[in-house]
């Protein structure tokens, strides 16, 4: 399971075609918490450098998806997709390709697809913040 999650995290990091060295170093450190060694991480990362086409990419992540599907555990699938969301956000920018990849993964794993298209991200965050502040003011007035 840990290898599958690690692979999906790395896939999310590389899917936009750009690997930031600092981001890679931090994610490497985080993935090692799962017990993935330096060598295993470097090997996985070097495998991604051999990927030239979408079909190669899909073939590369398929074993990880199969592992998670075989567990038949929606909680673990949800956690795997959540780690992908956090990796996508690591550089503060969420790209459409990352969103599509994560949503496809969620769909393949049979769990609710994250609703976080970039077009609804900022308005959603603002709406919740304003609503929360409004609720606080209302609650204070009522006391």
């Amino acid at each position, binding site marked *: 399971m*840990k290898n599958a999650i690690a692979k999906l995290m790395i896939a999310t990091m590389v899917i936009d075609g750009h690997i930031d060295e600092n981001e890679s170093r*931090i994610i490497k450190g985080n993935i090692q*918490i*799962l017990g993935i060694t330096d060598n295993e991480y470097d090997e996985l990362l070097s495998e991604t450098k051999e990927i030239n086409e979408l079909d190669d990419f899909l073939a590369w992540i398929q074993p990880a998806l199969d592992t998670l599907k075989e567990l038949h555990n929606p909680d673990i699938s949800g956690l795997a997709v*959540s780690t992908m969301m*956090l990796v996508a956000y*690591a550089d503060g920018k969420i790209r459409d390709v990352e969103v599509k990849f994560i949503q496809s993964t969620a769909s393949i794993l049979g769990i*609710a697809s994250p609703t976080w298209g970039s077009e609804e991200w900022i308005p959603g*965050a603002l709406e919740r913040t304003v609503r929360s502040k409004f609720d606080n003011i209302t609650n204070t007035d009522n006391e």
Partner: protein
Amino acid sequence: MNEAIAKLMIATSFVDGSSPASERELIRRIMDVLQIDEKKQQGLFQEAEDLDDLEDFVEWCQSPILKIAEKNDVGWNAISILFMALVAMADCKIVPSESRLIGAIAKELKVNIESLVLA
């Protein structure tokens, strides 16, 4: 289990005294994926807003720590700390308060965090 991990994520997001709206939104959407209902989400955020210092946060994290420890599975312990680390690195660096919180929880769950790029 999902709620325990959500609580650890929220604690990590709030412990440095500021939780950007975009980061909260991300955590909310992750909690949606983890099937945590909106009322529960709001309750957890509200509780976190009322906490002041690191000790408060560590105390607040005791119930999720117990829940995770009950599983008696090093894999779950590691995944829980991984979520905290990923939230902390949302801005590509882990600040001292986040680092101390992660260190305290990792110690309780007996997770080795030597590999983390801590502040």
